[in-house]
């Protein structure tokens, strides 16, 4: 399986992706095989329908938003590069001391970029502000039907009040970062499990490949 993926993917392309996203070779090939298995149209790009076909994603309350995050503005197809770029947000944060390269742009998996990604889940109209309505929409998605509009509204109001610093009744990205010291909660702390499975799978795959 892995070998098929790597044949379809050219070496230089892998190198480029590696440089851009920081994924390892085996991870890239594994994700590429996943990409091709998702790609029902077999044209090298994924459409929204391809994503929506994933059964778990269909029941995920924020599924649509996350699918949206894969697509650049105004497009409804995403190629493997874009796919990887989005996934790269979920790679663990690397030690900044090691690769402190002032010339390089900020890696996709930096804390700021992760937070920006999360921020854009809320920010539907991309005006760099989470308005009350946008927050309400996300809340409504997450809590389901057990809660009345008024209750939800008051939660949203309070949330905004808590975060809002300049009194414009919306949460800007800076406020979003600052709010409640987000670095203290396990922001993406969970992705060590993601990397755990990556490692396990890639190790397994390597073993399989070498044995074959």
């Amino acid at each position, binding site marked *: 399986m892995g070998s098929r993926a790597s044949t379809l993917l050219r070496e230089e392309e892998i190198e480029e992706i590696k440089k851009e996203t920081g994924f390892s070779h085996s991870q890239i090939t594994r994700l590429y095989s996943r990409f091709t298995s998702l790609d029902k149209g077999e044209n090298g790009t994924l459409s929204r329908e391809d994503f929506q076909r994933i059964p778990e994603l269909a029941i995920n309350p924020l599924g649509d938003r996350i699918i949206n995050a894969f697509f650049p503005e105004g497009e409804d197809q995403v190629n493997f590069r874009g796919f990887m770029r989005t996934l790269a947000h979920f790679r663990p944060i690397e030690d900044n001391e090691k690769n402190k390269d002032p010339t390089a742009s900020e890696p996709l998996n930096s804390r700021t970029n992760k937070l920006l990604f999360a921020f854009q889940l809320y920010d539907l109209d991309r005006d760099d502000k989470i308005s009350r309505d946008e927050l309400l929409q996300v809340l409504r998605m997450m*809590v389901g039907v057990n809660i009345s509009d008024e209750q939800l509204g008051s939660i949203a109001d309070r949330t905004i009040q808590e975060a809002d610093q300049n009194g414009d009744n919306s949460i800007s990205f800076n406020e979003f970062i600052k709010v409640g010291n*987000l670095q203290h909660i396990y922001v993406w702390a969970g992705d060590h499990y993601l990397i755990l499975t990556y490692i396990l799978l890639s190790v397994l795959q390597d073993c399989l490949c070498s044995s074959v």
Partner: protein
Amino acid sequence: MSSLLSSPVLSSLPFSLLSSPLSFLAPVLSSLLSSLLSSPLSFPLSCPLLSPFLSPVLSSLLSSLLSSLLSLPLFSSHTSSPVLSSCPSSLFHFSQRFTTVVPESCMLILLGLVLGGIVLLTSKKQLYQLEPGLFFLFLLPTIVGDAGYFMPARLFFDNLGAILLSDVSLCSDQKVQAGLMEFLLFGALISAVDPVAVLAVFEEVHVNETLFIIVFGESLLNDAVTVVLYKVYMSFVEVGPENVQTADYFKGVASFLIVSIGGTMVGLIFAALLAFITRFTKKVRIIEPLLVFLMVYLAYLTAELFSLSAILSMTFCGIGCNKYVEANISQKSRTTVKYTMKTLASIAETIIFIFLGISAVDKSKWAWDTGLISCTLIFIFVFRALGVVMQTWVLNWFRLVPLDKIDQVVMSYGGLRGAVAFALVVLLDAERVPAKDYFVATTIIVVFFTVMFQGLTIKPLVNWLKVPRATNRKPTINEEIHERAFDHCLTAVEDIAGLNGYHHWRDKWEQFDKNYLSKLLLRKSVYRKSELWEVYQKINIRDAISVIDQGGNVLTSARLSLPSMASRASFPEVTNVTNYLRENGSGVCLDLQVIDNVPGAKVEEESETHHFLAGNLYKPRRRVRPCQHCHTDRQRQDREIFQRNMKSRMETFKTTRHKRHSHKKDRSDVKEQDLNDKPRRNVSWQDKDPVVVPVESEDEKGEHLEPEKEEDVGITFVARKVPDTPKERPKSVPAGLEVCQSPSVAPPSPTCSERNLPWKGGIGTLPVCVSMEATKIIPIDLQQAWNQSISSLESLASPPGPVEPLHPLLSSSPLLSSPLLSSPLLSSPLLSSPLLSSPLLSSPLLSSPLLSSPLLSSPLLSSPLLSSPPDPQEKRERKHLSCLTASLI
């Protein structure tokens, strides 16, 4: 095992569940007691043996508990045991700087040593020993139960892998120590990190949660490993090392698995049972805490009966049931459970450590071997460090947030041995293990060394290494929301990437939980509620409490900053207000219950706080809606409301402060202020309503006094619109006014006199009110008569009575409350002027103890009846009138 199965519990379960939960409790209780008392087989400790043994301990503990309740610092509470109670004060002063350095557990052991020494000196024989039975049956469960029940479940499961790994690896490494079977046995029991000791030390050090949960979780699960290894080796020793075959080792491993997994299963079963039962306790709230304790303890005992890991069982019972039980039981039960558990746990901890000290003194029990002891100490240290390093090396492969060197040091240093090891070694059979005395001695030394030395030095070490401390910060609503969003997000990404990672499984579990478990185990009303809403409520309550805690400082804190906070600079007096609040804030009683019970000086602050909360806390929309807010413009309105509140409150402050100065000598100062606070209560709501100021009556009061009781919601600050004023009231106002045609004052119209009603606030009426201060509230059953008497003023046109007796008469309560006496009095022309009669009627109500009673903490505060700020004209008039009334009296 048999005792439980044959007991009525299991057989009667289905029937009793169908009937009331109360009747279900009875067999459980009885079986528990019977299994405790009547089965000496499984419980070596029977009651008669226990009672003489426990009583001195308990009495000393009670005394220490009492003294600690008197809010003495920690150390003095322990020194005040009977023996040392003669000199607590000197120790108390000594302890002030001592306790900051020395952990509590060390103190306790030292105290135990002293106590043991004294007892040994006097009686030549050690009377009290830490009995393993006592330890395992009563002391350990309380501690573990506490820890398990309050274990943050998510954190625990997030770190489960680390805990499991560290647990097994660290326990097994000690086996290398010696070739001999007996030493193997010893190694097994000495290598166990003790949950009690770890809890005691780590809680004081406040390391960050991850570290704490890893070390503590490890020590909890250690019990399983230790006990199993101990039993396995025990059997090996019995058989003799030469007869042990390879198969036996596998049996050992198998039994380990069975013991730990079985214990967990028992715990989970009981957790489900407990959650299920609490679903039906709505009518009998009182038994909820009892149920929690019983079932958790029952889980422990059952696991013990099947010789499974009891600690594991109890821990998992606590973890498992926590979510559902917490949602099912009432707020009060929750509090009860929390504090009872904590109290019991700390009592048990105290006993254990004192006993450790006491039993160490007894020389007959142990034999010294320097070589063995030093070797053990060194090996313990080395292997612990080695184990930690190896295991973190493996773990860091998988962990995103790696455990760095500092964490490793703390982890290896935090391996405190404690009472579990000691109890196990005391349990050894001296005939089969000839070297028992040596082992006991070594264990005691090891325990002492680890608890004393390491416990003492771990705090400076943590400071020195700059280990990130636990932040005592509670999550904000933002964090709660974002965390949920992130979880969903990660799950989605895992799904997209085609991984079945941690989040994938957790999501699966949550689906299962939502679809089946919660439906089964949660009360319907609870199940309906949204989790996020609950969190929101909790945060609101917490803010409310923090408002009380901080007094007025909340005005400046960012926590509760409301949108209009930004504009507060426009109020010039704000600083004054804050200062005022700060001055007063120091005296604010933090304990809500105390506030509720003491109607005296706390009243003012209480009402102040409630006023503040009712005005400023963010209200659920549902409740605010009756105030006829327009919904289109909520934000602006909120701001407006807050500003108005601020303004009116500042006025209140100014006036109260002013009065403070002018009436300092007045004994009823507090009540006065209360009285004057009243008029401004909830001005903002009032503004929205048509100003209806009916004559204050008990009937109406009664209506407002009804707090909106909603179970389990916690504090809700309700701002309600005035219910329609009773029809008869407005009637009686003009009726009363008609008679009062006093020439001296003569307010031309009823509306004007209405405005002059004293509860509309003002300095002018003060003297009058003060004179009425002592009057009592009219009993509700006399209301009818009272009202009649008022309306009967119309017909009564009696001649003016002497003015002088009025004052004493009025100030004596029964007079006013009895309609017969009060009506002639009121009908005197002087008093029947509308101005006077209305204060008369209203002031007892306003200044009455009823108002200052705990009922005030109800939504009553925000009743819009008590009304708007006076305009200048009113003020003038009132001043005039008050002069007049003063001259009359």
